[in-house]
């Protein structure tokens, strides 16, 4: 069969009961992919939808499916189907308005941007955490000032995380060196929190256990109050200033 108006601007198909294509118009050739079966014109996920509705053998209006264009791209289309008395199915393909595609592309873009931002924030957070760790590590250097003495000036606040970190580096360094005295200097310490202090107490005990003499210098009066609450405070030697600490080591009998 042929269509009465071959220049009809929308793709038209005539199909038999087996859904084989009997004839097509020029617009169909121009815009759609070709096939023996009508179902081949649709992407795999849409085929069953087309088939289910064709099997009704009744008129179907605006059946939305994804068709394949002559260039192989996906086309969102509406199908209009009707059946003649001779069991010929006539189908018109109407392309969907691009507005939907535009809006959904816009939505996609927004979502991607949110995901990217999220991802960037995550990366920034990781960097910040690493910096903080590095900062903590650097804020308690182990400085050997003579064969027998080492100085550990602590910078910034003393909280539990920092005292843990200090404990880790200090015990390692002290173990590998020949020092007998460790001066821990608090001159540059701002706040001390209670947990940081009890972590620090453990550290001091540990150092004393491996036979080191611990001197604490540069305590601020407000720190001194905190320290007095600690049990082991009596075994730690407190010195007013770093200068006195160094002098006491230098003058101490070898």
């Amino acid at each position, binding site marked *: 069969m042929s269509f009465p108006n071959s220049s009809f601007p929308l793709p038209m198909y005539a199909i038999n009961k087996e859904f084989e294509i009997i004839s097509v118009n020029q617009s169909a050739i121009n815009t759609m992919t070709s096939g023996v079966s009508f179902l081949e014109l649709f992407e*795999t*996920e849409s085929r069953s*939808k087309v088939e289910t509705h064709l099997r009704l053998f009744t008129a179907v209006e605006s059946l939305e499916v994804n068709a394949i264009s002559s260039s192989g791209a996906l086309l969102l289309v509406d199908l209009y189907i009707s059946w003649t008395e001779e069991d010929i199915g006539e189908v018109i393909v109407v392309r969907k308005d691009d507005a*939907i595609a535009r809006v959904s592309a816009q939505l996609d873009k927004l979502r991607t941007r949110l*995901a990217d931002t999220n991802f960037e924030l995550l990366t920034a957070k990781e960097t910040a955490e690493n910096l903080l760790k590095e900062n903590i590590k650097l804020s308690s250097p182990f400085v050997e000032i003579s064969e027998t003495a080492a100085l550990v000036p602590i910078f910034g606040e003393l909280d539990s995380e920092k005292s843990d970190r200090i404990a880790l580096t200090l015990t390692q360094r002290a173990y590998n060196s020949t020092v007998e005295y460790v001066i821990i200097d608090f001159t540059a310490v701002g706040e001390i929190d209670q947990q940081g202090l009890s972590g620090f107490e453990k550290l001091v005990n540990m150092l004393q256990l491996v036979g080191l003499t611990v001197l604490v210098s540069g305590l601020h009066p407000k720190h001194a109050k905190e320290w007095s609450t600690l049990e082991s405070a009596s075994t730690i030697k407190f010195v007013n200033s770093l200068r006195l600490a160094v002098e006491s080591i230098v003058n101490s009998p070898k």
Partner: protein
Amino acid sequence: MQNHAIKLANLFLHGDDHAAIAYINEVLLENNRLMLYEDLLTPAMIHIGKLWETNKISVADEHLATAICDYVISDYEFRSASLEPTHQKKVMLFGVEGEEHYIGLKMAAAVFQEFSWSVRYLGPNLPLQHAETAVNAWKPDVVAMSAALSYRLPMLKKSVQVLASTENKPTILIGGRMAPHANFAEEAAPGQVISMPTLRNLHEWLNHSGKDTEIRHVIS
């Protein structure tokens, strides 16, 4: 639960995010992520797919429903205080090149987070080349990818081959509707690929692999 899911699907289709969240709070008896994702959101989205197949709704409706569902997940994840990743294990998730379906993937990322894995969610339609670069740079223990449509299978296979043979030999998880059809996996990367058709499967697997020190390689 099925009735609840259908009702929720209708709220998604109406674009009513507030009502959807309120409804979830009403029917979800306990604060259970797996129940929300597996018994409410997934069936709701499957129902929406069926509505399209029976020509009751259009693609535009589907997009709106997906956006609302996405929002609901983000909202839930924001509210449930996520644990800091204490786990040593790292997972990277993405949808294979060309694949635009991502809701399942996003939910899988949240499940990993619940098990306090270190998670990188790279979203849908990630070009394979980028995925490979990311795997080489970050060296995840697990790479989870998903595909929903059958014509993504060749791309899925290629992705498995490329990513499984990267330097640190990650375990590959395949999720999404194509997970049960990934028969090629055993041949593409022997002993390295696990099919994970549902979030419950993932949950169970994470429960097990959390106890073992080594991740077990099984193909279901």
